[in-house]
C-alpha cells in the first residue's frame, strides 16, 4: 500500500473510532443530580491514539506479509523457533541450562520476597498450564472448568488441615488423587460430547463446584473460607514468613521440574501418541483400536491430578481459601496460558505462564489501566501470533534403516 493510502485509511479508522467511543468516552451523566458533562478532549485522544495504533498495526502486518512472501515453499512447515534451535544443539543447550539454573537457584537471594512470591505464583501457573496442556493441547479436549480440580485440591488441604491437622506432604497426594477422581467422575458422562459442548459442560461443572463450596457452609465454611492453613513444614521446623516463601519457591521449582519430566515422558509414550492421534482424528483413532473413552479419561484425570496438586500448594501458600479464588476467569487465564504459549508445547506453556502471570503484576505500574492493557495484549498477541509464542515442534520418532533406533 502506498503511504498516502495508508494515512487516508488511518484517518478513516480514527474517525470511526471517534464515532464508536462517542457516547461512552465523551458523555458522562449524573442521573440523580441531572448533570451532563461533555468530555470532548477524550475524542481527541481517541483520534490520535487510534491513528498511531493503526499505523503501527499496519506496519507490523506489512512486515509479516513480506516475510511470508519471501519464504519458499519448504519453509511453510512450522519453523523451529530460537528456543528449539538452542535446545537442539547440545552445547548451547547445556550452556543455557547451566545459566538458567544459576539464575533460578539464586533468584530468591537477590530478590525481595515480593518478587519471589510473584515468581511462586508464576511457577504454580506453569504447572497448572502443563496440566491443562495434557487435556487441551495434547488430547484436544476443550476444558473450561479446569479450576474446579484446582479447588478440589485446595479444599482437600484446607479441610484436612483444619479438621485433622494433616500436614502439607501428607495431603499432597490426597489432593491430587481426589482431583483425579473428580476428573474421572466428570469425565465418564461428558467425554462423548464433542468440542464446544464439552467446553460448556466443563464450564458448568466448574461453576457447580464453586457454588457448592459457597453454599454448603457446614462442609466448607462457605464464603468466609478457611483461614490459618499451615504452610508446608520442613522437618517440623516452623519457618518465618520470608524463609517460608523461599522454601516454597524451591519447592515449586522442584514441582515444575518433576512435572516437565513427567509430561515429557508421557508425550513420548504410547499414551502420548494416542492423545495426539485422538486430537487429529477420532474415528481413525478408534478404527486403529484405541479406546477413545479410556484415553480421554486418562488425559482428563491426569490434568485434574496436577490441578489438585497445585491446589494444595495454593492453600499452603495463601494460608487461606475461599470460593472467590475459583471463578471461571481463573480457568480462562489457565487456558490462555496454554493457547498463548502454543498448544501442546511444553516450552510454550512455560513462557505463556510467565507472561500472563507476571504481566499483570508488572503492569501494576499502569495502575487502573492494568486490566485494560492486559485485555488488549491478549487480543494483540492472538492477532499477531495465533499459533502461540512457541509453535509446537513435537519430537518425533526417527528410524534409520540400519535398525539403530533412536528417539530424537
Amino acid at each position, binding site marked *: 500500500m502506498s503511504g498516502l493510502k495508508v494515512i487516508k485509511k488511518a484517518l478513516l479508522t480514527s474517525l470511526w473510532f471517534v464515532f464508536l467511543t462517542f457516547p461512552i468516552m465523551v458523555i458522562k451523566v449524573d442521573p440523580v443530580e441531572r448533570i451532563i458533562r461533555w468530555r470532548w478532549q477524550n475524542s481527541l485522544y481517541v483520534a490520535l491514539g487510534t491513528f498511531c495504533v493503526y499505523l503501527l498495526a499496519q506496519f507490523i502486518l506489512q512486515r509479516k506479509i513480506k516475510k511470508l512472501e519471501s519464504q519458499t515453499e519448504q519453509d511453510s512447515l512450522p519453523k523451529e523457533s530460537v528456543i528449539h534451535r538452542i535446545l537442539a544443539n547440545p552445547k548451547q543447550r547445556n550452556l543455557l541450562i547451566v545459566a538458567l539454573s544459576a539464575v533460578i537457584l539464586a533468584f530468591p537471594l537477590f530478590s525481595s520476597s515480593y518478587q519471589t512470591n510473584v515468581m511462586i505464583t508464576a511457577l504454580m501457573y506453569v504447572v497448572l498450564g502443563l496440566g491443562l496442556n495434557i487435556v487441551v493441547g495434547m488430547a484436544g479436549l476443550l476444558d473450561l472448568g479446569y479450576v474446579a480440580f484446582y479447588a478440589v485440591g485446595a479444599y482437600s488441604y484446607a479441610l484436612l488441615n483444619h479438621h485433622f491437622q494433616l500436614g502439607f506432604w501428607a495431603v499432597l497426594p490426597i489432593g491430587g488423587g481426589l482431583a483425579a477422581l473428580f476428573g474421572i467422575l466428570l469425565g465418564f458422562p461428558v467425554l462423548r460430547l464433542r468440542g464446544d459442548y464439552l467446553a*460448556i459442560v466443563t464450564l458448568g461443572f466448574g461453576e457447580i463446584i464453586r457454588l457448592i463450596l459457597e453454599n454448603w457452609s457446614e462442609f466448607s465454611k462457605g464464603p468466609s473460607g478457611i483461614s490459618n492453613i499451615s504452610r508446608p513444614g520442613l522437618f517440623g521446623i516452623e519457618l518465618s514468613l520470608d524463609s517460608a516463601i523461599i522454601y516454597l519457591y524451591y519447592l515449586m521449582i522442584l514441582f515444575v521440574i518433576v512435572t516437565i519430566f513427567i509430561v515429557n515422558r508421557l508425550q513420548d509414550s504410547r499414551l502420548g501418541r494416542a492423545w495426539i492421534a485422538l486430537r487429529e482424528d477420532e474415528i481413525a483413532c478408534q478404527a486403529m483400536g484405541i479406546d477413545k473413552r479410556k484415553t480421554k479419561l486418562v488425559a482428563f484425570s491426569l490434568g485434574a491430578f496436577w490441578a489438585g496438586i497445585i491446589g494444595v500448594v495454593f492453600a499452603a501458600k495463601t494460608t487461606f481459601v475461599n470460593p472467590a479464588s475459583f471463578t471461571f476467569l481463573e480457568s480462562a487465564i489457565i487456558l*490462555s496460558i496454554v493457547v498463548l504459549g502454543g498448544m501442546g508445547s511444553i516450552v510454550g506453556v512455560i513462557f505463556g505462564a510467565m507472561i500472563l502471570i507476571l504481566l499483570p503484576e508488572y503492569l501494576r505500574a499502569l495502575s487502573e489501566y492494568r486490566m485494560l492493557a492486559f*485485555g488488549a495484549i491478549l487480543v494483540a498477541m492472538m492477532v499477531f501470533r495465533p499459533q502461540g509464542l512457541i509453535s509446537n515442534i513435537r519430537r518425533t520418532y526417527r528410524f534409520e534403516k540400519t535398525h539403530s533406533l533412536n528417539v530424537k
Partner: protein
Amino acid sequence: MDYFIELFFSGITRGAIYALIALGYTMVYGIIGLINFAHGEIYMIGAFTSFIVATVLSIYGFPLLAIVLLSGVAAVIWSSAYGYTVEKIAYKPLRHAPRLSPLISAIGMSIFLQNYVLLAQTSDFLPFPELIPDFPFMEPVAHIVGSSDLIILITTAIIMLILTFIIKFTRVGKAMRATAQDRTMAMLVGINVNQIISVTFIIGSALAAIGGLLIASHIGQINFYIGFLAGIKAFTAAVLGGIGSIPGAVLGSLVLGLTESFATGYVSSDYEDVFAFSLLVLILIFKPSGLLGKAETKKV
C-alpha cells in the same frame, strides 16, 4: 397454584431476557463456530449507551416515548458498531488460526471492554431511568406479571418472529444459512462471506442492545460488569437449546429461566445455578447436540 403461576411467569421473563442475548451467541456460533465471549460485553455496552442517551434526553425534557425510541435506536446503532468493530479487530484476522485462538482473543476483548467502560464511565452502579411505566390496565395482575415483564415477553416474541423471517426468506438470511453450512461452498457460489459474517455480528449485537435496554430498565440499575453473568447464562441457554439453532436458543433460554425460577421457588435459590448447570449436563448427556440442535451424522 397462584405460586406456581407466579414462578412460571418469573421463569419465562427471565428466559426471554436470556433469549435476547442467547440469539446473538447462537447466530455467531452458527456462522463461524466461535464462542463469542465478548457478546455479554456488547450487551453491557448497549445498556450503557441507552442509559447515557436516555438520561441526557430526560435532562433535556424529552417526552418518555421519544426517550424510549431514541435511546433504543442509539443502543442498537452503537452496539452494532461495537460488534462489527470487535469482529474486525479480534476475530477476522484469526479466521484461519488454530481453533482456540479466537476464543482467547474473545476473552481478551471481554476483559478490555469491561475495563474500558469502567475507566471511561464509573465503577459504581448507576440507576437506570424507568423507561417502562406501570400500565394501569396491568394493575390487577401486577403482582404476577409487571409491565416490564410484559414488554420483555412481547419484544422477544416479535424479535424472534422477525429474525426467523429474515433467516428463512430474505437474501441475507439465505446467504447466512449457506455460510453456516459450508463457508467454502458459500464463497464458491458468490456469497461475500466476510460481509455475511459482519452482518451476523451486527444483527446479534443489535439484539443484545435491545436486550440491554429492556433488562436494565427492568432491573433499574447497571454497571460495567453486568455482561459477564448474563453472557455466561445466555451462552448456556444457547448450548442447551442446540447452539446454532435460532428456535433452539429461545427454547433453551426459556427452559433455563423456568428451571432457575422453579429451583428457587421449590428448592432453594442457593442452588439455582447448580440446578441450571446440572440440567445442562443432563440434557447434553442424553441429547448431545442440545434440545433442537441437529444431530451430527458422522461422515466417514
